[in-house]
C-alpha cells in the first residue's frame, strides 16, 4: 500500500505555486530595481512589514482551518496597544500591564466564542459586531490622541537590533510562526482542527469536541491579536487608533493567499507564511520600482486574484493527474 511521502504532501500543498509565483515576481523586481530589491535594507523592510500581521495570520489561519472566522482581531490589537499604554501610564510594572492586556483580549475571545457556540450566531456577524464594540472602546480610550508606550523593556523588544542589524522582534515572530506550524502539522490539536473544520458533525460523532476547540481558538486568536497590537505600540513607542492594514481582514489576507480556505479543513502554516511573504514582498517590490502607495492597494487585490486563479488551475492539474 502506497503511503504519503514528504514529496507528495509538499506537491499537494499550495505552497509550491506561491513559491514559484514569488520567485518570478522577485526576479522581475530585482531586474527592474537594478538589484536594489535584494539588498539587506529592502529584505529587512519586507520582514519588518510582516511582523505585526504575522501574529494575526497565525490566529486567523488556525480559526479558518477549523471552519471559523474572526473579524475583530485587528481591533483587539489596537485596543491592546491603547490599554498597554494606559496601564503603563498608571505606573503598573510592565509584566503586569502586559498580563492585564492579555486578560482583556482573552475576555473578547471568550465573548466571540460564547456568541457563536452558545447563542449560535454566524461567526461573521458576531465577530463583526464585536469588532465595532472593541473599536469603539479603543476610540473612547484614545479620544483622538495617542498614548506613549515608553517602558524600556517593551520598547527594547519592539526596536532592538542584534548587532545593530537584525531586529529581535523578527526573530521572535519567525519562532512563533514555526511553533504554530509544528502544532498544526504534528500535534493532536492540529489534526483535530482539520477534522473539525472539514466536518464538525462527523468530528463530534467521532468523539472530538468542536466547541472546546472553538473556545481555544477564539481565545488564542484574540491573545495573538493583543500581542500584535502591543508589538506595534512598542515599535512606534505609542499606541494609536489605526495602523493595521486591511482592517477586519488583516490576518486573513495572507492566509487566504497561502491557500487557507474559508470552507475550513484545508491549508497550512507554510502556505500562510509564503502568502504573507508574497503579500509584503510584492508591496515592497512595488515601492522599490516607484509605484505610488495608492496603486499598491489595487495591485494587492489583483495579486490575490492571480494567486487564487493559479491555485484553481493547480487544483485542476492535481485532480486530473489522479
Amino acid at each position, binding site marked *: 500500500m*502506497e503511503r504519503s511521502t514528504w514529496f507528495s504532501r509538499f506537491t499537494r500543498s499550495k505552497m509550491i505555486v506561491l513559491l514559484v509565483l514569488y520567485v518570478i515576481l522577485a526576479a522581475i523586481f530585482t531586474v527592474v530595481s537594478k538589484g536594489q530589491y535584494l539588498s539587506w535594507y529592502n529584505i529587512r523592510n519586507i520582514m519588518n512589514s510582516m511582523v505585526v500581521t504575522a501574529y494575526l495570520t497565525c490566529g486567523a489561519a488556525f480559526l479558518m482551518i477549523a471552519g471559523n472566522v474572526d473579524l475583530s482581531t485587528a481591533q483587539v490589537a489596537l485596543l491592546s496597544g491603547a490599554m498597554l499604554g494606559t496601564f503603563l501610564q498608571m505606573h503598573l510594572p510592565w509584566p503586569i500591564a502586559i498580563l492585564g492586556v492579555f486578560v482583556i483580549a482573552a475576555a473578547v475571545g471568550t465573548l466571540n466564542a460564547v456568541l457563536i457556540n452558545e447563542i449560535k450566531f454566524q461567526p461573521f456577524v458576531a465577530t463583526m459586531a464585536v469588532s465595532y464594540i472593541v473599536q469603539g472602546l479603543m476610540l473612547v480610550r484614545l479620544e483622538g490622541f495617542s498614548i506613549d508606550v515608553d517602558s524600556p523593556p517593551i520598547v527594547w523588544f519592539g526596536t532592538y537590533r542584534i548587532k545593530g542589524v537584525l531586529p529581535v522582534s523578527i526573530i521572535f515572530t519567525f519562532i512563533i510562526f514555526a511553533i504554530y506550524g509544528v502544532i498544526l502539522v504534528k500535534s493532536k490539536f492540529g*489534526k483535530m482542527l*482539520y477534522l473539525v473544520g472539514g466536518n464538525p458533525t*462527523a468530528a463530534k*460523532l*467521532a468523539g472530538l469536541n468542536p466547541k472546546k476547540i472553538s473556545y481555544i481558538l477564539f481565545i488564542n486568536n484574540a491573545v495573538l491579536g493583543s500581542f500584535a497590537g502591543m508589538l506595534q505600540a512598542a515599535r512606534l513607542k505609542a499606541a494609536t487608533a489605526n495602523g493595521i492594514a486591511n482592517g477586519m481582514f488583516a490576518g486573513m489576507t495572507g492566509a487566504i493567499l497561502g491557500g487557507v480556505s474559508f470552507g475550513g479543513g484545508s491549508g497550512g502554516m507554510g502556505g500562510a507564511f509564503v502568502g504573507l511573504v508574497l503579500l509584503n514582498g510584492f508591496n515592497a517590490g512595488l515601492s522599490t520600482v516607484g509605484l505610488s502607495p495608492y496603486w499598491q492597494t489595487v495591485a494587492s487585490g489583483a495579486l490575490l486574484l492571480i494567486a487564487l486563479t493559479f491555485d484553481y488551475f493547480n487544483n485542476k492539474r492535481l485532480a486530473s493527474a489522479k
Partner: protein
Amino acid sequence: MAQYIEFSGIGKAYPGVQALKDISFRASEGRVVALLGENGAGKSTLLKILSGDTQPDEGKIIINGEENRIASPYDAITKGISVIYQERQLAPSMSVIENVFAGDLPTKRFGVLDKKKMLQTTQEIIDKFGLPIDPEDPVGRLSVAYQQMVEIMKAYRRDSKIIAFDEPTAPLTDTEIAILFRLINQLREEGKIIIYVSHRLAEIFQITDEIVVLKDGRMVKTMVTAESNESDLIRAMVGRDIGDTYSNLSRNENIGEVLLEVNNLNNDMVHDVSFKLHKGEIVGFAGLIGAGRSEVVRAIFGADPILSGEIKIDGEICKFSSEKDAIDRGIALCPEDRKDQGLVMWRDITDNISMPVLDKLMSGLFISRKKSEDLAERAVEKYSIKTPSLDKIVSELSGGNQQKVILGRWTSDLMDTRILILDEPTKGIDVGTKAEVYQMCCDFAKQGIGVIFISSELTEVINVADNIIVMHNGHITGEVRRAEATEENVLALAMLD
C-alpha cells in the same frame, strides 16, 4: 410514429477512467426503461450526458430520427428532457407554484408575474396527480417525498417528453414509493419516455418495462422486464452468481448475556423505548423514515439529550454527557449519512480512520504518522478497501469503500468497540458490497460485539438481524425474531397507529 430517444455508441472517458464505452439502446414513448448497475457502472455519467451536464466523446444521441447534441442543461430542457436527481434542485423558501414555474415565469404586461395563471396551472397538475399538496406552501416545508413530486410536476409543466429519474426511491418510505410509482405510471400512460435509474431490484420489476444493465461503463445486457428474473439481473450486474445472499451468511450461533439494556428512554423524539442487546447479537431496527430509529441510537450514543429513562451496559447504569463518553464505554455509531455525518470528505483515509483514536497514535508530543498509517493500512487490508494509496481523499472513493472506511474506523484494534450501531449502512451501495456488509455484521457478532442494525430496507433488516425491533412515531410497536419475521408482519407493525 412513436417517439423515441436512442443512444448510439456513446463513449466518455475521464482522465484515467473509461466511464462509458459503446452504449447503445433505445427508449420509446410509453415505456419505462431501467438503467441498472453497481456503483461506478456509469449510470450517473449517462444521466449527465442526457441532462447536458457533460458531453460524450463519441457516439450519437438521436431523438425521433434526428441527431442531437445536448450542449447544456438548459439545452436539454428546451429539447424536452428533464432529469430528476437525488439532490433536489428546488428553492426551499419559495412556494410550490414558484418552483414549478422556475426558469420561465409567465408574465403579463410590464413584466408583472401572471400569478393567476401560475396558481391555476399548478393546481391543475396537483389535481391531475391527486396529490395532497398546497400550491402556496414553501417547498422546504414539504416532506422529501413531496419535494420529489414537485420536481416531477416541474418536468410535467415544461411538457418534457423525456423524464429521467436518478434513484428516486432512495430517501422514500414504502408508502411514498407507492405514490411515486402511481405518478410514474400516469406519466407512462401519457406517452412519456421514462428512464429510471435504481439499485433496488424489487422495484425494477414493479415499475419498468425494459432493463439496460451496465457494468464498468459497458452495456452488459438489455432485456424485457417481463421476461427476466432477479437472479438473471444480479448475475448480469455483478458478473457472477451471488446466489441467495442471506442463506449464505455465516452467522454467529452463540449469543451471550445482556450487554446493553435500555429502559423507558424518553426525549422529544423517542417515547418509552426499552430493549435489550446481547453479546454477539444483531438487533435490527425497522420502521418508516422518521419513526425515531436514528433518534434512539443518537440518544444512547450521547449525541442527543435524554429526558428520562436509563441505559445500562453490563448491568451498570451509564450516563453519557457527550459522544466521547459513549465511545469510551465501547459504543460506536456509524451514522445514517456518510457524507454529512460520517466522514471528513476532504481528508484522506488515514485521517478518517484515526479520528477517534488520536490519543493512541501519539509518540511523545506529536502524532506518529507511522502509527496512523499502520492503523489505516490494517483497516484497508482487513476490509479490502479499494484504493491506490492511504492518502487518498475519501470523497474520491466509491460509496461502498467509504462505508468500509467508517467500519474500519470503529472496529480497529485500537478501539474497544463492544456495541456497534450501524444506521443505514447499505444505503447507496451496490449489491456486491451489500452482501459484504451483511457478512461483516455477522463477523462482528461472532467476535462478541452487539450490533444494532438500522435499515429502511425491510428484506435486509429481517434477514440480517437476529431480533427485529419495529418502531413507529417514536414508539416501539413490536419485536419479532428472525424466524417469525416476514415483510408483511413487520410492515404492519411499522404502520401501526
